[in-house]
Structure formats: C-alpha cells, structure tokens
C-alpha cells in the first residue's frame, strides 16, 4: 500500500508538470472526441435510420405471404414495442363505368408507425392520418383521376362499397420500387372481411414494429431465429438497395471521421507520454541509485498515471455526452421531424472511455516501459540510456491498438490493415524525408547563413525528437486534410451522382414493338434522358453442370440464393456506372454465350472466371461462360443489372424492356393519360427515393462538419503536444544563445527556419498521403468510381497548415525574447 500513497504524493507534486497535464488533456480530448463523435454519429445514424423507417412505416418489418403467427405480435408487445399489421395487394376498383388496378395497403388503426400518411379530406384540409376507418378508403391523385372520383364519392373494391374519405398526398413507401399502380389505403378489417386476403390472393402480409433502438435490435434477432419459411425481414437499411448504399456510405463517413479523431488523440497521447518519460528518466535513475527496485519505481509510476487517467476518462464521458446533446440539439432541426426523437445512446461514450484508456495504455506504455529498464548508472551518465537502442517490442503496442480501433470503427480488418498501412507509410515517408533533410543540413550547414544554420541545425541536433515531431504533425495533418478537404470532395462527388435530371421514373413491361411509340410519347411530355434496356426474367439453374438448388456448390448451400428470380439483360457496350474489374468485356458475336456478373454475384456463389452458368428463361435454357466481373455503382439511379449477357445470345431470349427517364416532379400528372394509353406498362416513381438519397447526403455533410470541428481540436492538441515536446529544450537553448548575445532577428530566423522546415515536410507528406488515402477510400470504402483528389484545395490547405506550424514556432520564441536570460536558465 506504500506505492499508492507514494503515487498520490508524486501526483500532488507532478500535477503541475506540463506534460502530465498534456497527457491528461490528450486523454480527455481522446475520450471527448471519440465519445462525442461516437455518440453524435450513433445518434445521427439512429436518426437517419429512423427517417428511413418512415419509408417502410416502422423500424422493422416482417414480410410474408400468409399472416404471421400471433407469437410475433406477442413477443413485440412483451418487449414494449408498438406493432401494426397490414397487407398489401393489387386490386381492381370500379366507379361508374371505369375501372383501375390499384396498389392497396390495408392497415390497422396503428399504421403507419413511422413516417406520415398525409391526406386531404373533402373539405380541402390536409392532415396526418392513420389508415382509414372501416367502410372508407383513401385514394391518391392518379387513382382519383383514373376513376373520375373526388373525396366523398363511392367506389367498389373487392366487392365492397367504400366511401372515398380523402386524397392521399404522401404515404410511407410500400415495398420500395414495386409501387406500380395508383395507390389506395383502406382498413385492414375491411380487407379481411371482403376476402381480399383469402387463399390464392396475391396479398403480402406485413408486421411492422417500432420502439427503442435496443428493443428493436433485440426483436430483430429474435425474429430472425423464428422466421417462418417464406417470411423475410424488411429493415430500413435494406428497404431499397440504393438507399442502403447511401446509409452505408453515411455510416462509413461518420465512422471514418470519428476514427481519424481517435488517431489524432492517440498521437497527442503518445507525444506527451514520450515527453513525460524523458522527464522521469533522471528521477527514476536517482531512485534506482538510492536502492529502489524497478518494480517499485514502475509501480509507483503506473499508479501516478492511473489515478488521473480514470478521472480524465470519466470527465471525458460527461463532457462527450453533454457536447453530443448540445450538438444534436443544435442540429436536430436539420433532420426530418420523426428523426428528432432519436434517443441518446450511452454506449458510445463509455466505449470511448474504454478506447481512450486503451489509446493511453497503447501509446503511453512504450516510452514508459523503457523507464523500467533504466540502470542506476544513468544518474551519472545519460549515455548509459543510449546504449539500449535495440528493437523494442513495446513499440508494436500502439500499432496493434490503432489497428484494433480502426477495425472496431470500420468493422473490417481489411480496411484497418490498409488504413494502418497507409498511415504507417505516411509516417515512414515523413521519417525518410526528415532524415534526408537533416542529413543534408548536417552536411551542408556550413554553407548556410549563421541564422539559417542555427535554425536548421536546431532540428538536426534533436534528431530523434525532430523525427517524432515531423511524423506526429504529418499524421495529424493527414487526418485533418482527409477530413477537411477530401471528405467534402467525396460528398460533392456523391451529390454529383444525383444531378437534378437524374431519371426519376421507370417504365417496366415495355414490349419490343412499343419501344419507339413510347419513346416518342414521352418525348412529347418533355421527358428527358430516356434510356431503355432489355430484360428477361429467369432463374439460375446450374453452375458448371451442378444443380445449385439441390446440391451445394463449392461446399456451400446456395439453394436460397438460387431460388430467387434473376433479371438478365444484355448490352454490346459496357453500360455507364459499370467497370470491368476482372476478365474482359464481351467479344463481338461470340460462338458460346458469355455472361458478365456484378462482384456481389461472384461472392454470393463463389464463382470464378470461366465457370459456366445455366439460366432458365421461360422454357429456354442458356449456358453462358463467365468472362468478366463488373463493379456496378449501385448508388446511381440508372437501370443496372447484376447479370449481363452478350447481345447476340441475349436477344434470343423472351424479353421485355425497362426504361428510365426524367420528368420534373410537378409534371407527373401528365403521365396519367400516358398510362391510360399504354395500360400494359407499369410506371414507377422513384422521386421519393431520390429525395431521400439527396437528404442523406445533406445530413451527412452537416454531421461531417461537426465531426471536423472536433477533429480540428484534436489536431490542435497534437500540434501543441508536438511543439511543446521540444519546448523546454528550445527555451533553454534560446536562453543560452541569448546570454551569448544572440539577436532577436537571429532567434526568430532560427525558429522560423526550424518550424518552416518541419511544416514543409509535414505539409508535403500530408498532401500526398491525404490524396492517396482519399482516392483509396473513395474507391474501396465509398464505392465511387470517379474520384479525383481536389489538388488545389489540398495544396492550399497543406500550405496553410505548414504556415501555421511555422507561425506557432515564432510565437513560441516571444517569451524568450522578452525575459532576462538568467531567469530563463533558472527554470
């Protein structure tokens, strides 16, 4: 027990030490940055998910072809979740002499749990509504026009006579893209009573649940384990693939930002620990000389650090939660109303405390562990320390901690590996650059002017420190440039993926003889960007002659995947937003059919180039050899296919066409007549999805800006820690030079030169590392195909950063220039 008491005494004395304070400040900031960013990111992510929940009408849905067993509702209720049951089916409505196929949602009184059903009643007032009461039905504008009705009229659906209660203005999406016909909403009880949901009907049944994030997550895992055969989970994330990609990207963005903040804090911790260790060397050597055991000295050191660390970590948690709450309060009106209820998650802040302590241990232990090996002789001669220059396994620890943190944040060891490798590469590059510069300085210093030489050799003298400083500043700058310059560019790029004239309508079931007519009719409506592609619907039967529905392929049971419908298309040229990553694009009129697949398929079925896939379309069998693998940018709202065939063989299959075009959202009513002229066509409106995607980009941009502010703080701390590392030495040196008669200009020039060089090296490295890292991130993490680093902005930011470093160096000499040197030397 003597050790903790000694530690407390040491602490009382050392509390004033700048490096101990910096160490604690770094830990505090690490926890605050990680915690606030993590909490905010998690909360924004929750909020974004919640707003996505509006699309499916709940936080989680279970879709099935028959009503779900009551256990599903019961379990949800037991978990305190709200539930709503609905059915979705096509049905023909009759009014007067007209009829119209409707896409009907029959919901109970609770529907929608999330999102809004906005209706305009007969009296013209718009309001939020639930599914209508029994005996009435809501119809959208298209349905009303097609049937020649207004609210208050009567309509026959499924043999029932219903009152049109209101016009639907806005409703939560059904199953996403497949919202073909005009919409109607009616009471579930009516649908049940009318027999619309009976055996043989084409109805899909859905149970929606909504509630707290953890409860929903718990329910989700329970439901997953109890799903009946044909049921599937519908989550906000997978409600629509393109939107899912937007969420992925949003999540990855915020995680990356938080991660960079964490690494920045880690660097600051490492720097101040290094400095603390240097300071403690003499003291520990003396204690050892006085007879203290190395266990005793190290133990007291550990206690001295542990006490304030825990305090700092908890203070960090509190501040992080407060900051996140403030930030969210400030930013919440940027989020859709329903997302503002997103609860404050406490997990991330405490996880951040854990991670902060891990960072502390990981980054601070190596220099401190060295102290354990200090021989007593070091009291007499510092050189005794220098002999133990062998490789120290301790220095792997921060690397492992960083790797672990990155993996934790990104959920991918591959990304962690690549990111860590590129950061290590940046550090190595900096070290090399610094080393070479220092060597040149040593070598050619004699030819420089005295002041310049003084400054340049100041770096060369503290070679180890200079290397460390340069690496720390480079890594810090890299992280900041990535966040400040590359991230906005990435977001811009993403926004550019969704230009105003992005196709917002799809036409499916277009027959070959209709193509020209439809194209002309749409052109008359001022639709732009018309593009159509053939589509054949079939199934994957076998791979390399192995029947995949009954036999495992390459050791894996893929019958589930193989049982689904496949949409095939063909094209002579590689479609836009597609990139061949393996193999070669189709040859001209190949003798044997060729197929090109998206990488997702390659993973799904574990395929290799040269494999033969057998498709069944209608009654036609087609054997096609896999000749290329494509990467498709699914975030683009173009018509894209997982499976493409060479056109010569594709054409022989029975097929229809799918077309996309852009029509300003206000002009949609013009399509009513068009859809009557071509009754076989289904029109799909993706404006909603487009809007959601655009909103997400906007939300992420806002969040990223907040995260950037935190990271700037962390970056400033790294800079401060790096500069104060050598501050004591520099002050001593400057004071001494001053006693020898050095002029102000000489000291300033020396400082400017020293820090200018440091800034230039770090700036240059950071510029390159951020550009390379950003490009890699764009391609691999954010799956953007066309991304060019914003060189001018990067260069400007790097130059500004280098200038800031140099300016800070200058500021640091100010005190020295004013104080009588003897007072400085006494410190």
């Amino acid at each position, binding site marked *: 027990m003597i050790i903790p008491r000694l530690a407390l005494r040491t602490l009382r004395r050392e509390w004033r030490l700048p490096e101990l304070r910096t160490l604690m400040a770094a830990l505090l900031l690490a926890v605050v940055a990680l915690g606030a960013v993590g909490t905010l990111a998690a909360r924004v992510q929750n909020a974004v998910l919640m707003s996505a929940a509006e699309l499916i009408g709940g936080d989680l849905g279970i879709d099935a072809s028959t009503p779900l067993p009551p256990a599903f509702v019961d379990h949800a209720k037991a978990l305190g979740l709200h539930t709503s049951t609905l059915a979705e089916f096509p049905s023909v409505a009759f009014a007067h002499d007209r009829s119209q196929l409707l896409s009907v949602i029959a919901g109970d009184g609770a529907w929608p749990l999330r999102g809004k059903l906005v209706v305009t009643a007969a009296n013209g007032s718009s309001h939020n509504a639930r599914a209508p009461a029994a005996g009435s039905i809501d119809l959208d504008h298209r349905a009303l026009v097609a049937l020649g009705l207004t609210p208050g009229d009567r309509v026959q659906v499924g043999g029932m006579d219903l009152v049109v209660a209101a016009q639907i203005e806005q409703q939560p999406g059904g199953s996403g893209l497949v919202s073909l016909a005009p919409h109607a909403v009616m009471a579930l009880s009516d649908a049940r009573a009318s027999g619309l949901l009976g055996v043989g009907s084409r109805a899909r049944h859905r149970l929606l649940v909504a509630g707290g994030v953890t409860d929903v997550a718990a329910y989700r895992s329970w439901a997953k384990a109890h799903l009946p055969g044909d049921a599937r989970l519908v989550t906000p994330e997978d409600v629509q693939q393109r939107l899912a990609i937007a969420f992925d990207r949003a999540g990855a963005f915020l995680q990356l930002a938080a991660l960079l903040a964490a690494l920045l804090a880690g660097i600051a911790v490492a720097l101040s620990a290094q400095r603390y260790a240097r300071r403690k060397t003499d003291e520990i050597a003396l204690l050892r000389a006085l007879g203290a055991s190395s266990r005793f000295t190290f133990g007291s050191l550990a206690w001295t650090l542990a006490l304030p660390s825990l305090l700092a970590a908890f203070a960090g948690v509190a501040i992080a939660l407060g900051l996140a709450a403030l930030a969210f309060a400030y930013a919440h009106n940027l989020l859709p109303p329903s997302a503002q209820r997103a609860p404050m998650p406490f997990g991330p802040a405490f996880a951040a405390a854990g991670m902060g302590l891990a960072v502390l241990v990981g980054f601070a232990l190596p220099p401190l562990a060295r102290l354990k090996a200090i021989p007593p002789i070091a009291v007499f001669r510092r050189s005794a320390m220098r002999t133990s220059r062998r490789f120290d396994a301790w220095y792997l620890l921060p690397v492992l901690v960083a790797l672990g943190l990155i993996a934790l944040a990104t959920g991918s060891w591959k990304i962690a590996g690549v990111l860590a490798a590129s950061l290590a590469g940046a550090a190595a590059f900096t070290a090399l650059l610094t080393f070479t510069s220092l060597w040149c300085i040593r070598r050619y210093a004699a030819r420089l002017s005295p002041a310049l030489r003084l400054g340049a050799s100041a770096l060369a*003298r503290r070679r180890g420190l200079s290397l460390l400083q340069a690496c720390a500043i480079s890594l810090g700058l890299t992280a900041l440039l990535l966040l400040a310059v590359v991230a906005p560019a990435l977001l811009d790029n993403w926004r550019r993926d969704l230009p105003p004239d992005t196709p917002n309508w799809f036409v499916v079931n277009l027959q070959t003889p209709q193509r020209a007519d439809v194209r002309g009719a749409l052109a008359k409506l001022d639709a732009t960007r018309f593009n159509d592609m053939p589509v054949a619907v079939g199934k994957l039967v076998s791979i390399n002659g192995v029947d995949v529905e009954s036999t495992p392929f390459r050791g894996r049971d893929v019958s589930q995947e193989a049982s689904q419908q496949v949409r095939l298309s063909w094209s002579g040229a590689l479609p836009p937003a597609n990139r061949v990553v393996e193999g070669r694009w189709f040859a001209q009129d190949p003798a044997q059919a060729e197929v090109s697949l998206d990488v997702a398929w390659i993973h799904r079925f574990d395929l290799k180039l040269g494999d033969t896939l057998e498709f069944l379309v209608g009654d036609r069998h087609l054997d096609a050899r896999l000749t290329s693998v494509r990467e498709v940018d699914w975030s683009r709202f173009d018509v894209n296919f997982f499976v493409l065939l060479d056109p010569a063989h594709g054409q022989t299959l029975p097929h229809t066409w799918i077309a996309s075009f852009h029509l300003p959202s206000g002009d949609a009513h013009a399509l009513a007549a068009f859809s009557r002229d071509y009754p076989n066509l289904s029109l799909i409106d993706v404006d909603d999805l487009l809007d959601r995607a655009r909103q997400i980009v906007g939300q992420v941009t806002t969040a990223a800006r907040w995260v950037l502010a935190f990271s700037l703080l962390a970056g400033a701390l790294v800079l401060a820690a790096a500069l104060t590392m050598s501050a004591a030495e520099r002050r*001593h040196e400057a004071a001494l030079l001053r006693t*020898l*008669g050095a002029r102000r200009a000489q000291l300033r020039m020396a400082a400017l030169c020293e820090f200018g060089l440091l800034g230039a090296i770090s700036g240059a490295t950071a510029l390159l590392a951020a550009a390379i890292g950003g490009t890699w991130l764009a391609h691999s993490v954010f799956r953007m195909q066309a991304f060019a680093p914003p060189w001018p902005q990067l260069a400007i930011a790097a130059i500004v950063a280098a200038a800031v470093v140099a300016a800070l160096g200058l500021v640091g000499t100010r005190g020295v220039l004013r104080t009588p040197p003897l007072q400085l030397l006494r410190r």
Partner: protein
Amino acid sequence: MGKHVAGPTGRLDILDDVSLEVNVGETVAITGASGSGKTTLLGLLAGLDLPSRGSVRLDGHALEALDEEARARLRLRLVGFVFQSFHLLPALTAEENVLLPLELDGAPDALARVRAALASVGLRERGAHYPYQLSGGEQQRVAIARAFVHDPRILFADEPTGNLDHTSRDGIADLLFSLNREHHTTLVLVTHDPALAARCARVHELVDGRLRVHAA
C-alpha cells in the same frame, strides 16, 4: 544596487546594498558562503538579469535602460560568461558549443579559433564529443573555451575551477590570467578557491547581501 525575488515564503532579499566598480583590465574575485548571492550578482553584472533597484553600467551603458535586445548585442560584443552549471547544449558537440558565439557574430575563420580555444583548455582531441561524453571538469573547460573564444573585453566566471583537479585548476587559472595580461580582458571570478582568489588584484566577500572588501 539591490536584488530581491519573490520566494515561496515571501520576499527574499538576495542582494541588499551592493556597490562595486571594476576597471578595465582589473581582476576581481568574489567569494562568499553558498547561497550568499554570488551567482545572482555575477548575472546582474553581466546583464543577464536586472537589479530590483540601483543601476549597472557596463562599458558606459546603463543596462537597465537598454532593452533585452540591446543588452544581448552588448553581451555579444563585450562579455564572456562561464556558468556554474556549464549550460552546454546537450545536442551539440564540444566544438559546436564553442562555435556558438562566433557563429552569432558571423565571425570569419571561426573553426580555427574554436580549435585553438579548445586546445588551450586541453581538449584538442575532444572537439567532436558531445557533453554527455565528457566528464564534469571537461564540460567546464568547454564552457570556459566558449566564454573567451570571441575575445570578450570582460569575462565573468562562476566557479571556473570548481570541478577541477589541482593541475587543471592551475592550468585554467594560468589561462585566465594570461588572457588578462595579453588581451587586457577584465576578469570577474566567483570562487571558493583561496589560491585562485589570491591571484586576483581585488577580493570581495558577499555577506548578508553586502560586499565586503577583503584585500586591495
């Protein structure tokens, strides 16, 4: 003049009422008990610190009237200083440490003068060594070489022979006094060594913050 500082237990009067005049080419020794304020006085005389009251005039310049910058210029031109604790820059070799004053002045043939200075303190071979590779006495000799390498008019030395053995002590003393003889360098030494003090023309003792003349 007087000097007081704020200590942890209140005001600490180090120098109370000190008056001292040193003429060009003189040799003066200051003795006194440990903690009597010798280092403080030497620092004030060299313009490294400012008195709390009174005035210090160096070569006709009232130091307290100058700013830090002007005092620095004056030091570079006139003053050499040997610190009690040497204050060598740990990252510089002995040669580079001695080079500093010349470098600041942009003096020509600097390296040759540095080598000559190191040779005269008996460290010809150790120029490339770093302070941590030198013994305490050797470091002290490097500090002395740094103090006179730029031919200052007045040299302040705080215990210049404190860490040295008999032979080197005499060697250093000889060197200092030969500077005085040949270049008319004024010497102001703080020392506990009676032999060294005896070689000076005047000896003052600091007692209770006041100077007492010992010998004339």
